[in-house]
């Protein structure tokens, strides 16, 4: 089934039906990455640009592998290797890429709304790989996929997202995505890192990790950026670790079947203790491998056109 949308810009305007289509397609594509020859010819002759104007290792690698395993031709552009560093506007970048007649652009950009901006100026399908603090839809989709695989249906399940909600596109996309799938979402963090009226997005707010931990099915830890301390958004690493870090003592108070997730890269010893980071409950590597399958599904559904899965 084709998607209702031409672009993947945000979970916000993605229908539940499209989410399910992507997850189902990812399910059938996941097997490709386990083959000896990890490649299907589905997107042969299609061109995908990975426009990464902000540092990224795993998202970029994941999209690159996803495209290559579908046999698409890929071109990677990073800020330091692009005309952006010479002051080219995003409008001109869009027009230039448009003139190459590419099929899709995967964009990572520090400005909220940048992916939608690109979609306004280009015919290609635009896939948002993170735009400022706005959204990171493929991360949320791969998180849904991973959670689904371990917990089955997410309906009625509880997920707590812990840490810097304010600056996190992952948190925003996940609040919306897990709510759309019928899960209950809690956000937990120091007050300066909880954005205003986040309840209206469908999340319950708590400042107390210990209070919520016994009731949740998924603990989703966010990476804390140390420079936020200078803005007094959290007060010290010591205090943050004490109140919001996940260690085995704290985890012991959670349900037995709880799973831990993290979008990576993890700060071992800060938001997550080394011990928990290496536990089997921690799905971080599953998330990485799901990432490739989900991004293959997104690329296939948006640029695959009529050709079959081969």
């Amino acid at each position, binding site marked *: 089934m084709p998607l209702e949308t031409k672009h993947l810009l945000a979970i916000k305007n993605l229908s539940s039906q499209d989410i399910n289509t992507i997850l189902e397609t990812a399910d059938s594509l996941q097997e490709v990455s386990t083959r000896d020859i990890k490649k299907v010819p589905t997107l042969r002759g299609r061109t995908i640009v990975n426009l990464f104007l902000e540092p990224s290792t795993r998202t970029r690698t994941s999209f690159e592998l996803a495209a290559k395993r579908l046999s698409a031709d890929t071109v990677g552009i990073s800020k330091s290797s692009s005309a952006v560093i010479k002051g080219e506007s995003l*409008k001109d970048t869009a027009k230039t890429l448009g003139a190459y007649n590419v099929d899709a652009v995967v964009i990572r950009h520090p400005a*909220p709304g940048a992916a939608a901006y690109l979609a306004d100026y280009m015919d290609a399908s635009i896939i948002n790989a993170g735009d400022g*603090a706005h959204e990171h839809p493929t991360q949320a989709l791969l998180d849904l996929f991973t959670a689904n695989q371990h917990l089955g249906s997410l309906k009625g399940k509880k997920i707590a997202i812990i840490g810097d909600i304010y600056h996190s596109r992952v948190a925003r996309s996940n609040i919306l995505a897990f709510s759309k799938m019928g899960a209950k979402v809690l956000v937990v963090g120091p007050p300066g890192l909880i954005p205003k009226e986040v309840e209206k997005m469908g999340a319950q707010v708590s400042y107390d990790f210990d209070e919520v931990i016994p009731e949740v099915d998924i603990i989703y830890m966010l990476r804390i950026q140390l420079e936020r301390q200078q803005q007094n958004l959290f007060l010290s690493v010591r205090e943050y670790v004490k109140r919001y870090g996940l260690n085995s003592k704290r985890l012991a108070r959670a349900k037995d079947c709880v799973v831990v997730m993290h979008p990576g890269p993890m700060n071992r010893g800060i938001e997550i203790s080394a011990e928990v980071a290496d536990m089997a409950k921690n799905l971080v590597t599953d998330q990485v491998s799901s990432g490739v399958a989900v991004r293959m599904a997104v690329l296939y559904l948006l640029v695959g056109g009529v050709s079959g899965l081969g």
Partner: protein
Amino acid sequence: MAKMIIKGGRLIDPLNKIDKKADVLINEGRVERVEDRVNAKNAEVIDASGMVVCPGLVDMHVHLREPGREDEETIQTGCKAAIAGGITSIACMPNTQPVNDHESVCSSIIEKAAEVGLADVYPIGAISKGLEGKSLSEMAHLAEAGAVAFSDDGKTVMDSNLLRRAFEYANSLGKPLIVHCEDENLSDAGQINESYISTVLGLKGIPAEAEEFIIARDISLAKLSGARVHIAHVSTSGSVSLIREAKKHDLPVTAEVTPHHLFLDEEMLTDYDTNLKVNPPLRSKKDTEALVKGLRDGTIDAIATDHAPHAAFEKEKEFIYAPFGMVGLETMLPLCITNLDMNLSTLIEKLTVNPAKILDIKAGNLSQGSRADILIFNNNAKVEVDSSNFFSMSKNTPYNGMKLKGKIESVIKKGKVVFKEGKFVE
């Protein structure tokens, strides 16, 4: 100069409490008589039946970009845009390049405006040198050169003691201070109103309190110094309450609101339209309702555009990189007529005599002997906003394509028809 009679219109002159069918006789560029019926020999007759005739509008908050950014607006194009919007007097903010913090800049603006000879341009001098909030500009020299008020518009003087001195000095010169109220520590490089919308869009928010806090401070400073303070572009419900309270205590406080803060709100921002990026930011629906109420009960004295021209290439950037501001001169009147459920005479008051009183300029009324700056408009005729027809050099408006009510028919400046049916009269 020949005589002219504007005949048969609905004449609205709020200063003289006139709102009735009447004729105006103009002689030698001045209003000679306003009567139910005027006849005079050798007078050119302008038929205004079915039209509203009122004083040319006064816009006390305009950004002309000359000197410095003549690619965005010049004194000439800004004046043309004003006239095309029915505005015959404008006050221009000092954030030019160089800043209008010196009498030479002030004089040069006045001279150029006189050369253009369309709208009257009243410069507003900078409170602080370079708008840096560190030391005061030579306010007396600026006043002598023609500055009608002082402002660091776009910026708040965060040093309260420095601002106190400015208040005292302005008071001694009989000039008001016009204050942009934004606590820069609280607004902290925010982009839009802080609320659910900023959270969903991942944009940094500016809380309403950033404005209200400074309004409260500046009201206190007005009390301390006795100086007149005018609050620019009020945007929140809390601000309206603070100003209402100050007026109850007879403090010398006045306030203005822009059409965009009255008629647009943050919920329109979901597409990251940079034409909606303004400072103060568009607020909630609840705030817009409070602003309309404040306008109605007299808490807010004036409507002003905060006309802020920006080059297309700057507004076409990603939202966080685009500058704040929208143009407004050519859309103010029809926006107000279309969207404000208000007695027309009260509306005209907010657009003419009230801002003229605040700035203490001779404009905004049709008293006998006053300069014949007159606007004739059709209250019911429809117009469609088309920015490609703007006389302003910049087109950064969110109203493009909007169908509005209220069409400018003619604009008379010093007794001469300068603008008629969408064209300038040579």
